[in-house]
């Protein structure tokens, strides 16, 4: 688990919050670098609530085991250039911009207001005045980066493609839309403030223009998972606690189930992980008309406590054999929990980082909402794929959900200062 960065971390740009300080003082034209010293001094004082920061640099990318922030913005982009140098340059620029934004700074020394009056500002500026807000930026590489649909190896990396990185299979009851699936690269931003998350993606997309084009994007609100043992399990839009048995930040678990080991194939992915992304629409109105009895039967958990229907507290081990008055197990064998539980999946666990989403209402006046499911793991073939296959076949919940998108990305290891995202791949 990551701790918020210490105050005094090296800063090169002008802090957004510092900038606000300058303007708050009425020095409307004094937004030069010279004012930064004053502003930084201010900043060394007490951080306002919400100004938590997570390290950008490290062995693993932030935004995976980082305790979940409440807001997500996720974008998948396709690379339009065929130049390896352009791609590397893009990743370098993204790395620099993300490192700055996650520490509450603008993406460039000149920022939103300090450049030429006759030029478009470097930073888009909608996060001015907002603290770092726990922002994390995480990127991943889609299978198509290693060879497009015609099998062209545009960047000379086809031979280094992780064997486990392939498009996900069709799962029963999938109704996935290619227009909101896949992508050469993905950007996941998470923050305590939704505007800060959107700002980060928007700036990276802007940097990418001419080299990348946005394929699809998704906003998420309200975390629906925990990645830290200190957080209480939040509820999904069905009103239930879910994913209780998945891993949080425990290093013993993350080494086993999450991070690619140096001995895994390929070696450049060591410290990285694999991301499965599924957009799951919930048929909210139908669910809301369903009896509490059936709702609990579908999950295999009580709605009130989140406990297994075999009793105890939320985190107590479920007893899948405990029978009720009719002799049948209290937790139905095809309930969501029974099928998703590690005990039904060779002990495999994943790191779940799911968010609730709403896209407004559909044309029928129904809430267009559900779960934007993000799961990280060391090996998709051992972890996500068999688990989802089991769920898609028989989960009682399938009556109330639709799978709308399906994507997979290799999430490269973390970055060291001076390095860039994916360096271990391109320096090979």
């Amino acid at each position, binding site marked *: 688990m990551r701790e918020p960065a210490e105050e005094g971390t090296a800063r090169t740009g002008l802090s957004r919050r510092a900038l606000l300080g300058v303007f708050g003082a009425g020095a409307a034209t004094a937004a030069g670098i010279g004012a930064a010293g004053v502003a930084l001094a201010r900043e060394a004082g007490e951080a306002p609530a919400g100004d938590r920061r997570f390290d950008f640099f490290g062995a693993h990318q932030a935004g995976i085991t980082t305790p979940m922030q409440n807001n997500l913005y996720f974008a998948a982009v396709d690379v339009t250039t065929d130049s390896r140098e352009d791609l590397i340059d893009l990743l370098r620029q993204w790395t620099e911009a993300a490192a700055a934004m996650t520490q509450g700074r603008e993406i460039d020394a000149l920022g939103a207001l300090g450049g030429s009056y006759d030029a478009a500002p470097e930073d888009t500026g909608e996060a001015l005045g907002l603290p770092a807000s726990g922002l994390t930026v995480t990127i991943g590489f889609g299978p198509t980066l290693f060879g497009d649909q015609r099998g062209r190896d545009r960047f000379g990396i086809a031979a280094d493609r992780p064997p486990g990185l392939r498009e996900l299979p069709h799962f*029963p009851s999938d109704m996935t839309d290619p227009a909101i699936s896949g992508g050469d690269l993905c950007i996941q931003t998470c923050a305590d403030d939704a505007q800060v998350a959107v700002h980060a993606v928007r700036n990276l997309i802007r940097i990418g223009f001419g080299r990348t084009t946005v394929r699809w994007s998704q906003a998420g*609100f309200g975390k629906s998972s925990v990645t830290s043992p200190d957080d209480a399990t939040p509820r999904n839009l069905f*009103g239930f606690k879910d994913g209780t048995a998945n891993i949080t930040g425990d290093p013993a678990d993350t080494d086993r189930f999450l991070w690619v080991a140096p001995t895994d194939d390929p070696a450049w992915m060591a410290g990285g992980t694999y991301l499965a992304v599924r957009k799951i629409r919930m048929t909210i109105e139908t669910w809301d008309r369903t*009896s509490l009895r059936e709702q609990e039967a579908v999950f295999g958990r009580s709605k009130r*406590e989140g406990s*297994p229907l075999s009793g105890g507290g939320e985190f107590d081990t479920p007893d899948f054999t405990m029978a009720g*008055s009719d002799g049948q197990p209290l937790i139905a064998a095809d309930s969501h929990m029974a099928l998703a539980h590690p005990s039904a999946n060779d002990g495999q666990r994943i790191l779940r980082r799911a968010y609730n989403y709403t896209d407004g209402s559909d044309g*029928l006046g*129904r809430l267009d909402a559900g779960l934007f499911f993000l799961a990280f793991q060391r090996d998709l073939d051992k972890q996500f794929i068999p688990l989802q296959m089991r769920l898609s076949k028989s989960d009682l919940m399938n009556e109330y959900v639709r799978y709308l998108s399906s994507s997979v990305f290799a999430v490269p290891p973390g970055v060291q200062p001076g390095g860039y995202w994916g360096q271990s791949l391109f320096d090979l």
Partner: protein
Amino acid sequence: MDLSVRTGVVAVAVPLLVVTVAACQSSTPSQSADTGVVSVASSDESCEVSAADAASGVVRFAVSNTGSQVTEFYVLGEDGLRVMGEAENIAPGLTRDLVVQLPPGSYQLACKPGMTGDGIRSDFAVNDSGVPMPTSDDDSAVIERATANYAAYVRDQSDQLLKDTKEFAAAYQAGDDDTARALYAPTRMHWERIEPVAESFGDLDPILDAREADLEPGQKWTGWHRIEKDLWPPRSGYQPLTQKQRDKLAEQLVTDTTTLADRTQDLTFTADQLGNGAKELLDEVATGKITGEEEAWSHTDLWDFQANLEGAQVMYAGVRPVVADRNPKLAATLDEEFANIQSALDRHRRGDGFVLYPDLTPKQIRELATSVDALGEPLSALTVTVLQGR
């Protein structure tokens, strides 16, 4: 954004109350007779009840299992035999609410740790609050008749389904595609009318009614929708089935439908199955038919819609006297919404059938969806109304 988050979180704390409150309000609209919560702690050796009496009307028990075995809680009549209400399968550590309508009188409460024996009993008095109670003497007879009638309805529909399926299969095998196409939707209506029953056979449902998107890798696609695709093939890239494949599919369809018809002969039903079944049929309309997903090739979704609606209407009609007795307002709402949705659907009739799904405008689809929600919402209160005060 922050507001949405809070709304999401707050909303989840409420449903337990919503269920109980809705039950109270729906059954006794003119009063607020919820006398508060009687809490019950059921351990392996004791059954501690927080109050020895309550006022007549709706009484709510919050039953916590403080023991180590699965427990049950019963509210029994003075004779200690008649069950007024029960909460079953409460695992250790869990709490479940039980809401019952109790007229003035003497009762027994029983916790049953381990779910066997007479349980640990105590007396419970219900004092007259002056609130009139819905009569229930005739209800059990009505429900008994409704469930028996429904069983007969299921038998009749599955017999007709089998008869029509044989004709359909014969036409398809004979290569008389026009006749097969004409028979497809009307035949399937028999299936759609009793869909919750047909679906309850987990082995038959996938081989008879699977849609292409539902298939598991390696699963062979058989049944109605496989033939549907062959009769209404996509414009390009489709390989028509051979005669041999046709024969096999058609014969399989008849065999599986025969099995279904056989199995439905001796089925019996309970009151809650009627209430839940009616709701499930409307859910079917809401999820598959209103979106045009069910009949992806023939586009005869409105036939299925009509049949689901008829099936729900039959279930509701059986228990309607009980609903009218206990909750006249709910009965009036359901009567009205059933009529509304039927007239909305009637506007799309063409000849003996309906227009095809793609011929509906987005506005028309939306009107239909709105009437489905308008009926589905009150219909979800049907089961609890029929079960209450059993």
